[in-house]
């Protein structure tokens, strides 16, 4: 049984006790503990259930590679599932619970799967679910949905805050172990801007645990001295709890900083996602120890040899009382020595190598420990904890030679360099036969914007697995005990039969065993990427940190090929999972996305507005009064505007000034109409097409002066159209003298609309707004009620109408003044829906309703707005193409249902016969449809084949539920056909 040792623990502070709960039971730990070390110190070794077989699981590792012990952490609005106990720093009041079991961790019904393992081989689900769709929907999916997932999904909004930050450096050092610190020191001494990121809370990596000497000092002392030196340099930033999650194109690195996880009540942001641009990334990400694949290697108490050392040295926790070490290399002997020093009994060291010598081996032997060369674990005994190991010869089928009682097994299959960051943006790895590992190929690095390498790898990540090798690589004096070569061991024992291989785990989290990978190979999965997906090897949240190399070695063996031929799967960012909160950053709630507000936004809100999103703007849709539905209020607004006077906030309308000697020529290219001939002081409705011929925007163009025009665009189109103009000016006609400026936000614009509009403006006073003084389709600059304004006589409703532009900062004051002065005329605000209905009553088109990117002006009977005189304009050539000139193109008409009801939006008019897909032929569709309170019936606009030639014909529009609506083709101008009301 695991327990806390009386002394030691370099990372814990015994003076600070910390209380936490796990599965509703209270435990104590110390400041500096991880959740894993505290649980282990409290004697808890059964900490989870595996995903597929629900086998009892405990800690295998001590860091990011831990596959088993994922917990639900926190509660309520701070619950987060799948948190790795080994990387969770303990804090007072932490609440954790185990996952994937029912009803309890100790007694789990799902464990029945473990007895059924022969029936749940690799690809079981794929094979089974192919049976029938009926079986999938009725049987499998409900069962799978019940069983799927590890932790519990939170049901409340996250209470924490998250943020992102940008940083720039010459050298980013990924990893704060000895190799990383050496690289940082070197770059800093060269005057580079250096950023050092260490994923844990502590510097020095493995060296303080593993020992040795650097520049005459113990590693811990050297690390301290180096940190002090780096800390004094202005060009160095040191960051702990910060993982380099990914290295991307052009040296773009994503760093994940856990700012507040360990101090949840200090008001800090929980996580910060760093977006770093690094000239060069020094990858010092270390190496991860590999498990050995023997039967029962997942029983709680079987751990990586390095993890056993970490728990003892860092947190003064002994994972057991009696330990068996099983290895294929010298490094694991350090664990034996460390365990002896901590007072544990080392029952034996099983060394799979036939020949084990060297200083570390001798040191262990000298302390009276049995070292059995050429030996292996045949099988671990125990279910919820190790009871004993059955031992055998490595070169055997597993015949048991002896049974050794123990409660902890420390295993080491060698080390795999962490090559992830080097690989993320294209760096390649190569197989190192002597070290039995993939390591970065320095000849094929990831490259940056100048074709230069953007990553270099140092230390264990580069295959320099010993302190001696690492120091030699960095040119620093230092080293540790000499080590003899590793002998690769991929299956233990080498000739293990099925009974053993069925329980020899490769991927702990996804329960993938040696037998599964071999089965995949027999079934024809030759590609490692396919095998991965078929068996789910390496697809869990640990992304195969422990399992990948063992898995592909076994696949290679099964396929009878060398490991480099099989290759690796793709290393993808992030290196370990990062929170959604960090990815989201500040973009949530009110600032999820920019909300554009007009100067009158607050007034609308205070007057019960119902909003309509238009691009990023919010525009008033309608202003319902108490007891009114939206339809009622829209009707009221329309009737009032057509009878009295209505006010519309039109500030969102695009307003682009175009000026210069060539401005007229330019606008003649931009618009289908002739704009160069527009007299100063006049307004003209214009159409804009893309050079592909399609209608993209419309609006009123005003000639402000001889060389200056003001172009109004749609609300959603302002930025796009301004960009469109600048594109042509900068990239095609750069010798034309034209300047543009987007003044959309400079002005608040208010439409004053209705028969009493003139009376209202006359009451404000200051300008002649009479028919003679300001005729229809003209404009004037002046003052109204003391406001500096520009007034346009334009109408989108068919009524007498003035659009008043006023500097935005005065928009609200003028809007309020109009309401105040207009009370006696029955003034009311109206929203976009009333605007839409009124324009439809007048047969005016709306970009986005009548157009959808495939409609040309000719389709909308707007031929009158297309100049015949101009040699060229954007879209002219395209509109000459055969399909554009086709007389069969659908054209705009009005539609009126026979019974006065409202047609559904977007419905199609059917034609005789069917097409090649056996669908009914169609001959038209509805583009706009409304109830008209003015005409007291449904009105619609639509595009119909030969429509304008078919006035009076009745078309069938099949709607939902088998209903067929009938509508007659009519003139699209439903209201005031002569246009007399606007021009008064």
């Amino acid at each position, binding site marked *: 049984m695991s327990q806390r040792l009386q002394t030691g623990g370099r990372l814990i502070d015994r003076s600070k006790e910390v209380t936490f709960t796990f599965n509703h039971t209270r435990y104590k730990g110390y400041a500096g503990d991880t959740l894993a070390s505290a649980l282990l110190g409290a004697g808890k070794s059964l900490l989870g259930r595996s995903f597929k077989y629900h086998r009892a699981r405990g800690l295998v590792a001590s860091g990011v590679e831990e596959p088993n012990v994922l917990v639900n952490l926190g509660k309520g609005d701070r619950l987060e599932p799948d948190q790795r106990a080994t990387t969770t720093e303990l804090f007072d009041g932490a609440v954790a619970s185990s996952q994937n079991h029912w009803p309890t961790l100790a007694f789990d019904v799902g464990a029945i799967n473990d007895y059924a393992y022969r029936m749940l081989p690799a690809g079981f689900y794929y094979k089974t679910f192919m049976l029938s769709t009926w079986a999938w929907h009725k049987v499998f999916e409900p069962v799978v949905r019940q069983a799927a997932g590890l932790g519990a999904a939170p049901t409340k909004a996250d209470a924490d805050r998250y943020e992102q930050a940008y940083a720039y450096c010459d050298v980013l050092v990924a990893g704060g172990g000895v190799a990383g610190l050496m690289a940082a020191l070197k770059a800093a001494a060269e005057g580079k801007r250096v950023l050092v990121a260490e994923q844990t809370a502590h510097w020095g990596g493995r060296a303080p645990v593993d020992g040795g000497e650097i520049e005459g000092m113990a590693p811990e002392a050297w690390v301290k001295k180096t940190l002090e030196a780096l800390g004094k340099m202005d060009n160095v930033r040191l960051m702990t709890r910060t993982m380099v999650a990914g290295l*991307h*194109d*052009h*040296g*773009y690195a994503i760093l994940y900083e856990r700012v507040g996880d360990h101090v949840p009540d200090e008001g800090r942001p929980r996580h910060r996602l760093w977006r770093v*641009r690094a000239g060069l990334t020094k990858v010092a990400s270390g190496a991860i120890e590999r498990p050995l694949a023997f039967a029962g290697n997942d029983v709680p108490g079987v751990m990586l040899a390095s993890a056993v050392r970490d728990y003892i040295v860092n947190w003064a926790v002994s994972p057991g009382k009696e330990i068996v070490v099983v290895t294929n290399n010298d490094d694991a002997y350090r664990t034996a020595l460390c365990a002896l020093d901590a007072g544990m009994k080392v029952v034996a060291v099983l060394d799979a190598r036939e020949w084990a010598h060297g200083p570390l081996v001798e040191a262990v032997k000298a302390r009276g420990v049995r070292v059995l060369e050429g030996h292996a674990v045949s099988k671990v005994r125990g279910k919820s904890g190790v009871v004993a190991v059955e031992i055998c010869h490595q070169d055997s089928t597993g015949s048991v030679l002896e049974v050794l009682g123990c409660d902890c097994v420390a295993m080491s299959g060698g080390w795999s360099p962490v090559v992830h960051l080097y690989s993320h943006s*294209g760096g390649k790895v190569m197989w190192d036969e002597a070290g039995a590992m993939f390591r970065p190929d320095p000849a094929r690095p990831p*490259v*940056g*914007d*100048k*074709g230069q390498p953007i990553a270099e790898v140092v230390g264990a990540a580069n295959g320099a697995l010993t302190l001696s090798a690492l120091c030699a690589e960095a040119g620093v004096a230092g080293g540790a005990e000499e080590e003899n070569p590793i002998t690769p061991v991929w299956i233990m024992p080498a000739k293990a039969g099925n009974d053993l291989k069925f329980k020899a785990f490769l991927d702990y989290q996804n329960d993938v065993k040696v037998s599964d990978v071999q089965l995949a190979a027999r079934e024809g999965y030759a590609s490692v990427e396919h095998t991965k997906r078929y068996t789910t090897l390496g697809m869990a949240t640990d992304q195969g940190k422990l399992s990948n190399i063992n898995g592909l070695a076994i696949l290679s063996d099964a396929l009878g090929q060398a490991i480099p031929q099989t290759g690796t799967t793709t290393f993808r960012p992030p290196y370990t999972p990062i929170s959604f909160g960090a990815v989201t950053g500040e973009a949530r709630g009110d600032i999820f996305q920019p909300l554009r507000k007009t100067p009158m936004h607050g007034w609308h809100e205070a007057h019960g507005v119902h909003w309509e999103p238009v691009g990023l703007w919010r525009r008033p849709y309608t202003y319902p009064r108490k007891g009114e539905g939206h339809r009622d209020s829209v009707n009221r607004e329309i009737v009032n505007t057509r009878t009295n006077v209505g006010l519309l906030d039109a500030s969102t309308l695009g307003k682009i000034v175009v000026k210069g000697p060539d401005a007229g020529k330019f606008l003649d290219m931009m618009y289908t109409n002739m704009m160069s001939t527009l007299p100063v002081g006049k307004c003209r409705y214009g159409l804009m097409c893309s*050079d*592909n011929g399609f209608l993209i925007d419309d609006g009123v163009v005003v000639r402000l002066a001889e060389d200056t025009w003001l172009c109004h665009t749609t609300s959603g189109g302002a930025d796009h159209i301004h*960009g469109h103009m*600048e*594109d042509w000016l*900068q*990239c*095609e006609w*750069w010798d034309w003298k034209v300047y543009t400026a987007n003044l959309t936000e400079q002005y608040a614009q208010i439409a004053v609309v209705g028969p009493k509009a003139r009376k209202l403006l006359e009451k404000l006073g200051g300008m002649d707004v009479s028919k003679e003084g300001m005729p229809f389709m003209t404009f004037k600059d002046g003052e109204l009620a003391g406001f500096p304004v520009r007034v346009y006589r334009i109408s989108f409703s068919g009524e007498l109408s003035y659009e008043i532009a006023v500097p935005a900062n005065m928009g609200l004051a003028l809007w309020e003044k109009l309401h105040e002065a207009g009370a006696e005329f029955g003034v009311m605000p109206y929203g976009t829906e009333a605007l839409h209905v009124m324009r439809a009553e007048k047969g005016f088109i709306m970009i986005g309703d009548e157009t959808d990117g495939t409609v040309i002006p000719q389709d909308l009977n707007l031929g009158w707005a297309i100049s015949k005189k101009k*040699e*060229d304009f954007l879209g*002219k*050539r*395209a509109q*000459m*193409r055969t399909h554009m000139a086709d007389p069969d193109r659908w054209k705009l008409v009005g539609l009126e249902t026979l019974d006065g009801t409202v047609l559904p939006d977007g419905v199609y008019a059917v034609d005789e016969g069917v097409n090649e897909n056996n669908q009914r032929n169609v001959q038209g569709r509805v583009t706009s449809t409304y109830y008209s309170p003015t005409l007291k019936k449904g009105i619609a606009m639509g595009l119909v084949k030969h429509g304008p030639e078919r006035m009076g014909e009745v078309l069938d529009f099949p709607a939902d539920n088998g209903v067929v609506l009938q509508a007659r083709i009519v003139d699209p101008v439903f209201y005031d056909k002569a246009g007399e009301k606007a021009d008064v």
Partner: protein
Amino acid sequence: MLTLTCPCCGVTVEETELAPGGEAHLKRFGPGSTDEEFETYMFARKNPKGVHFERWRHAYGCGKWFLTARCTATLEVFGSYPAQTTEPPAELIAKIKEKRPGWEGYK
């Protein structure tokens, strides 16, 4: 995510400040052109694995369009230059030829 240098305001910026504009150095064909010419101008685009000339707008910065030469396979950027030209600068072409001896040229 790419970094490109805007030749108009002289800063090296990340892609989030930029808007892409597709292939550079297209020749516009208007009225009077053949269907084939118009089709080529409007629709035919190169899609090379290797050197490519592109339009970018420094949308969040100075608002100006500029052109770049970039390798679509390695993302190496050979250079950027103002948009007011019908063909890439000679020195840029020379630089690319030096770095990519097998390159067939920009046309």
